[in-house]
């Protein structure tokens, strides 16, 4: 897909996207980078169309904001992979594709006769990514792994939540998206390798492995023999958490000594806190009440933007705590035009989170809303695979598409 005169960074790359859950964001990232990503759904619609939130809370094939959010920039076709005819068509598409992404349970693609060894024979250059909870091999590979299970097993859950409450999962399905992001890294590495070898490969992505990597638990335990405990928003030396202020909340950190020095300035150098002993993190952490009294005396008389600006001017890492609404109104985010408005034929014109990648020569943007069910069937089947309108009607009648 092109933006103005310049092609996006992966322009010309062909991707078949069979994902319905864990891999959605991988297809989106490749589409956002400018690849031609065709989302292949079964004729009844893929599972992600059933996931909320929905526009006006009314479930429907074309009202899932979840689906709409993760399928921008993709084209969409329907194809019944459980039928022989559907499998044959998929093989024709795969023979011409650079990348196939799927996130079905282990063994599903093999049962359809569409697993990597089969597709590789048709197209040795093909890169296939299989995204599952635990990967294709190993003792847990057949375990069911929705986001909550992956989040728990990966280790990030145990350390997150208030001190005296159960561990808590992150908003949205973060193990799905983070695994997808890691998968794209694997796919693009395989793609760059293909430039020199001419051969594709199977990328076996596991949410569990990604979770472990993003938690750092193995290395953390190995190097310290300590199990970290939940501490709400508190990190490092006090003050190092979310504090209430005049008009909301701010997040203040004093990890390094210069942060503490700067924050003393911000608070007007209260005499009781100016001794050298207060530069020691353990000392500060042993005197939480004294420090918190001074911090809140300051924060409760200032707004979050005042506090953030004063802290930043003194080298203290501090930001306002935002809701979705606050974030969209932040002057920095507004000036950068991070949110992009696009028109969707059913839900209308709305803002979407934009793309966090700015490429100077190969700019990318959201140019296309998520596809309606089967929206690009004639595009792909007639214009690209050469089926006639009559043949397309037959495929429809046979429920192949």
């Amino acid at each position, binding site marked *: 897909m092109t933006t103005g005169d310049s092609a996006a960074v992966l322009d010309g790359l062909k991707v078949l996207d069979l994902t319905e859950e864990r891999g959605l964001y991988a297809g989106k990232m490749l589409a956002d980078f400018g690849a031609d990503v065709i989302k292949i759904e079964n004729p009844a619609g893929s599972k992600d169309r059933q996931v909320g939130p929905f526009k006006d809370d009314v479930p429907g094939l074309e009202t899932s904001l979840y689906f709409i959010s993760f399928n921008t920039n993709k084209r969409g076709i329907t194809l019944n992979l459980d039928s022989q005819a559907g499998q044959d068509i998929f093989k024709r598409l795969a023979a011409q594709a650079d990348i196939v992404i799927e996130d079905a349970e282990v063994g599903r693609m093999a049962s359809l006769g569409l697993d990597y060894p089969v597709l590789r024979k048709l197209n040795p250059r093909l890169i296939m990514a299989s995204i599952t909870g635990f990967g294709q091999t190993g003792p847990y590979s057949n375990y069911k792994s929705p986001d909550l299970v992956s989040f*728990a097993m990966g280790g990030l859950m145990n350390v997150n939540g208030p001190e005296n409450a159960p561990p808590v999962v992150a908003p949205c399905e973060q193990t799905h998206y983070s695994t997808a992001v890691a998968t794209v890294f694997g796919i693009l590495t395989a793609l*760059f390798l293909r430039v020199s070898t001419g051969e594709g490969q199977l990328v076996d992505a596991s949410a569990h*492995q990604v979770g472990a990597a993003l938690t750092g638990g193995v290395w953390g*335990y*190995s190097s*310290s023999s300590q199990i970290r405990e939940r501490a709400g928003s508190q990190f490092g030396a006090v003050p190092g958490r*979310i504090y209430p202020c005049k008009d909301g909340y701010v*997040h203040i950190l004093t990890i390094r000594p210069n942060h503490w020095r700067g924050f003393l300035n911000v608070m007007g150098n209260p005499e009781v806190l100016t001794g050298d002993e207060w530069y020691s993190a353990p000392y500060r952490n042993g005197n939480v009440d004294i420090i918190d009294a001074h911090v809140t005396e300051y924060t409760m008389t200032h707004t979050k933007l005042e506090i953030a600006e004063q802290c930043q001017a003194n080298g203290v890492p501090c*930001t306002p705590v935002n809701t979705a609404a606050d974030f969209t109104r932040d002057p920095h985010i507004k000036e950068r035009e991070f949110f992009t408005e696009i028109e969707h034929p059913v839900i209308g014109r709305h803002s979407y989170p934009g793309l966090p990648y700015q490429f*100077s020569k190969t700019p990318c943007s959201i140019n296309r809303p998520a596809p309606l069910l089967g929206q690009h069937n004639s595009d792909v089947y007639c214009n690209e695979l050469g089926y006639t309108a009559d043949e397309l009607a037959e495929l429809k009648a046979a429920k192949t598409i």
Partner: protein
Amino acid sequence: MTLALSGIRILDLTDAISGPFSTMLLANCGAEVIRIESLRHLGFRFGGAGENPGFPLESEDFDFTKVDTSLLMSPNFSRYNLDKLSLALNLTKPEGRDLFNKLVKLSDVVVDNLSFSVMKNWGFDYDTLREIKKDIIVVKIPSLGRGPHEQWTTWGMNLLSFTGFAHGWGHPDTPMEERAANNTYGDYIAGMKAASTILAALYNRSNSGEGQYIEVAQAEATASMLGPYFMDYFVNDRVSPPRGNRHPQFAPYNCFPCKGDDRWCVIAVSSDEEWHQFCGALGSPKWAEDARFQTMENRLKNNEELEVNIKAWTRQFTPHQVMKILQSAGVPAGAVQNSEDLYYDHHLRNRGHMFTLDHGQHGEITFDGPPVRLAAGQKPQPENAPRLGEHNDYVYQQLLGLTREEIRQLIKDKVIF
């Protein structure tokens, strides 16, 4: 084995997590990543062990005469700098910047997360660097990117609060102050996304012959992981409160206490079929036959009573026992693993995903492998992070062809550390 990025040279001017993590992923695939390091800003080389390391004195307060700086390598530093080379170079001196520019001529990618003004003042902005190497790819991973807050210093925890993550990360009754905002999830996401932009740009360059400038702002890389949360706001004008562990459409779906101190499991039943499998796995207890628990709708309505019964069952077992019993019956369930569990993780070890490196004064440290393991193109086993300046000889003598005499003079002039 051919490594995917063999022959690609990357100059790495990053510190903390997101930048180093991104270049480490590339080094693991064969890129020659040269960290350009200074004695004045040792960053993560300081500090202790563990997931939540302390960061002692700033380097300007540090008495370098008393310490062998080449030994400064915290486990926290190693974790994000495996497979890299280290060059000690003083970029505050013009001669240091000349050497850097000579290296740029021999490189493919420059990555930094320094402030915009420092890079510009040093002449390391894209427009200047492309004069030196026409097809160079310059990548910046700033906190917030250009704009009104471009001078702000943030750590990953701040960005969870700034982007809306912290607002949504808690139990429904968790006060804002105690919501989860003390992890570095966003750093990793920004790092992985930045690594992908570099790979995409290298792939593009292999066709077009052109380099470019790339900016991946950490705040935006993090915020874009909340698509449905923002769409719900824009389309339904609703700011969703934190959902906690329960699911609006499914029950039982939550975190439950297990045998032991602070031990937990999760159970995620998402259909009536799984409910029947769940009851079977528990030995079809009498309470489970109650009409209030027979349909998803009823279970959601009577969730509190349902969970009381389930807790009484889960408390008899360890988290891994619950997982095994339920998963064997086809019910989604998992242990809430702590770092000790991850260290002993049966599945990761079975997949050959752990490796141990000798870490000098910190002993042997076990790491888990990269987030995605490739069948081809990636090192089977990572190498240890470099000591400060460990690769000075390789870079100054072999790459740049400096004589011993020139190097002695540069050391004397405090250009080379």
